[in-house]
């Protein structure tokens, strides 16, 4: 177990180096000069352009820029944005907001998704099950922006329960609506995965054995059935957490949440290599960590799985 974790952690290093190098190159390969773009429609003053490019290190070869960047990264220096702010500030500003939003959405999808899936799976073919299938199909087929605007209209414009957009991104109660929108799609997937898995396993031998042993129904479902049915769900949740952390650009835009998605989108638009790389480096770490946790959870959920 310990060796497995150590090996996985060591594997992260080349993955991390590879992804950051790739992202660094890709941002550089985007067409257009980010410094010249500061002048907008007007022709840049060539002297000032050259001076700014030099100040920001854009006049060096790309490999040199990347090595400088990685070197600084080791000392905890994430570089600066085109506006001269430390990238670390931008990250530490946006990250807590996104973590809150993602965890909120994540909790909603786990609690609701698993319970709905469980009930539907146990009552396969009944009205609740059919209702679940229809509802989740609906959620999966509605694009997030549409859902966002529908919720905005209902809860803000009509019912006036909330403001249409998030006024304070650090206020967790205001993040509820975006979190529901963000979590709804995954909620549908989680509910469907759980339902199928439960419906499948309920016919398994070990469940029959548990029932035959005279275990209470609660225990049969909670300890045996649910636990064994969670493996596909956990696999999905692991990757979904990463997606929630980095991919909420649309939802953040609709509700004006100042999270990672927004910051990343803004940085890509400005072609700010240092900011994009900083965020991506971080997201890569989140993905890798989530992947590791999922693998370890397999062993917890199913004792037959062992890591050496």
């Amino acid at each position, binding site marked *: 177990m310990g060796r497995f974790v150590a090996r996985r952690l060591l594997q992260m290093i080349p993955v991390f180096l590879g992804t950051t190098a790739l992202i660094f190159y890709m941002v550089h390969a985007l*067409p*257009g*000069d*980010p410094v*010249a*773009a*500061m*002048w*907008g*429609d*007007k*022709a840049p*003053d*060539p*002297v*000032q352009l050259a*001076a*700014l490019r030099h*100040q920001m290190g854009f006049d060096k070869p790309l490999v040199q820029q990347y090595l400088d960047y990685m070197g600084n990264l080791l000392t905890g220096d994430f570089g600066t944005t*085109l*506006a*001269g*702010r430390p990238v670390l*500030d*931008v990250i530490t*500003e*946006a990250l807590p907001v996104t973590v809150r939003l993602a965890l909120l959405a994540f909790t909603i999808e786990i609690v609701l998704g698993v319970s709905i899936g469980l009930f539907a799976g146990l009552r396969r073919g009944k009205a609740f099950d059919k209702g679940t299938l229809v509802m989740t199909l609906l959620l999966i087929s509605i694009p997030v922006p549409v859902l966002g605007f529908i919720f*905005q209209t209902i809860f*803000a*414009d009509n019912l*006036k329960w909330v*403001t*249409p*957009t998030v*006024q304070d*991104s650090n206020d967790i109660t205001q993040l509820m609506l975006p979190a529901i929108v963000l979590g709804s799609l995954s909620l549908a997937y989680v509910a469907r995965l759980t339902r199928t898995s439960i419906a499948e396993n309920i016919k398994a031998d070990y469940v029959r054995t548990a029932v035959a042993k005279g275990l209470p129904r609660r225990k049969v479902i909670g300890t045996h059935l649910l636990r064994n049915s969670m493996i596909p769900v956990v696999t999905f949740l692991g990757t979904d957490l990463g997606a929630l952390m980095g991919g909420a650009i649309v939802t*953040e*835009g*609709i*509700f*004006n949440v*100042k999270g990672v998605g*927004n*910051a990343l*989108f*803004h940085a890509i*638009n*400005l*072609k700010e290599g240092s900011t994009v790389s900083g965020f991506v480096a971080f997201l890569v770490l989140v993905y890798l960590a989530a992947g590791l946790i999922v693998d370890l959870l397999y062993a917890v959920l199913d004792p037959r799985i062992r890591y050496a």
Partner: protein
Amino acid sequence: MPVAARARWVLAAATSVVLVATGCSSGGGGSSSPDASKTFSYQSSEPQNPLQPANANEVGGGRIIQNLFKGLVDYDPSTAKIRMQVADKIDTSDSQTFNVTLKDGWKFHDGTPVHAKNFVDSWNWSATTSNNQINSSWFSDIEGYKDVHPASGQPTATKMSGLTVVDDLHFTVKLANRVSYFEYKLGYIAFSPLPDAFFNDPAGYGQKPVGNGPYQFVSWTHNTQVVTKAFADYQGVDKPKNGGIVFKMYTTSEAAYADLQSSNLDVMDQVPPSALATYKSDLGDRAIDAPQGAIQNIGFTLYQADWASPDKAKVRQGLSMAIDRDTITKTVLQGSRKPATAWVAEGVEGYKSGACGDFCTFDPAKAKQLITEGGGVPGNKLTITYNADGGHKEWVDAVCNSIRQNTGVDCLGDPKPDFKTARAAITGHQVNGAFRTGWVQDYPLNANFLSDVYRTGAASNDFGYSSPQFDQAATKADEASSVADTVAGYQQAEAVLPSGMPAIPLWYYRTNSGYSSKVQNVAFDSFGNPAWTQVEVKG
């Protein structure tokens, strides 16, 4: 004014619609009397540079700076005419040496007086290459600019020889050449004064600016908001009628519009394209539809052999006449633009309606005839390069349809993924035939729309247009003895453009905006900014 991102923003906001309401005064209801101590919120975007006057050339930072600082002059929001602010008077006898007299009593927000040296130090610092100010080239008219900002290498001086402090309230500006309308340029934020404390720590100051404008800086929560409050000691003619402005950062105008409708945001700068058709009914008398000093054009690659010969001007005139501007602005653009009849935008000092003549009127028969006379479009096919991120696709396609149907010339849009890619292609002379271009006023004077764009070798002459008659007329206008003569001179220069037709004027921009039920007396100027200090917050 803001050149860069301002332009970026206006052009990006461009899918729009408009009507005719004008943003003059009296908001909805209007029953309660205004409370001068209350603040209002404005839709903004995170400044892309530190808040230094010569470093803000995009809307996000520009509109904050223009409230924190006040220069020698500014432009009356309702008439776009120049008016004196810190300056008491600006005299010149030869359009080359300007004697500036300041009003006594102006103060910075830290209590120090605004004196002549604050202007001179500010301009010298901002112009110097090593201080990396994006708007440094704004000072290029001043004598000695080449010493602080040489064409290559390090500056050899830190002061421009053309600036001389006479005493606390007087200084002189000597220009390298005669520029009769120089005072018009002085309304740009780059010419703001800076307090002595600035020079100790310019970078720190950029995060916490101290100015002399109607509002003083309170706080800046990055990506969230910039808070300002009214400055009690403000000496300008436009004393704030409200307690301050909160600049709230929005990433999408849809989100801002949703907040505006629910009064969580008070004033916004442009309604989202998706709301253009409905915003007037949504907001009622709180909707705004005002002219802007900005124009949309189609430019041509005169530097290409195919387009260089003089008779191709006829082809361009013909293409211009094949575009049905009225229909396109009404349908595709939902009335958010006004058909152009000149190269200078409406409302600008020196605007001359109809300068384009018949060439800007829709006449398919004449169009065909001119194109044939000119030898036809090279390859009988025109491509129009544009940036796909600015909502331009719809009208470029409409213009192409108009050209195709009326002349038989094949026409296609050539989208580039975003603004900076399109600009790189245009300035790098990598486009073929035609491209979308536009101009947003830096200052509301016709010279700005002409000299900076159509002069031989001008910074924004992306066409490679070179007309000795135009250059001569422009130079003559620059050397005129008064602004009025300059304006007339540039009108003569503009009259040269129809014969060469380097760019086809399409339409003028408008501000389509609105405000919440909490505020009143909201009017927009030709820069697309509200008259900030005049906004009244209901009690």
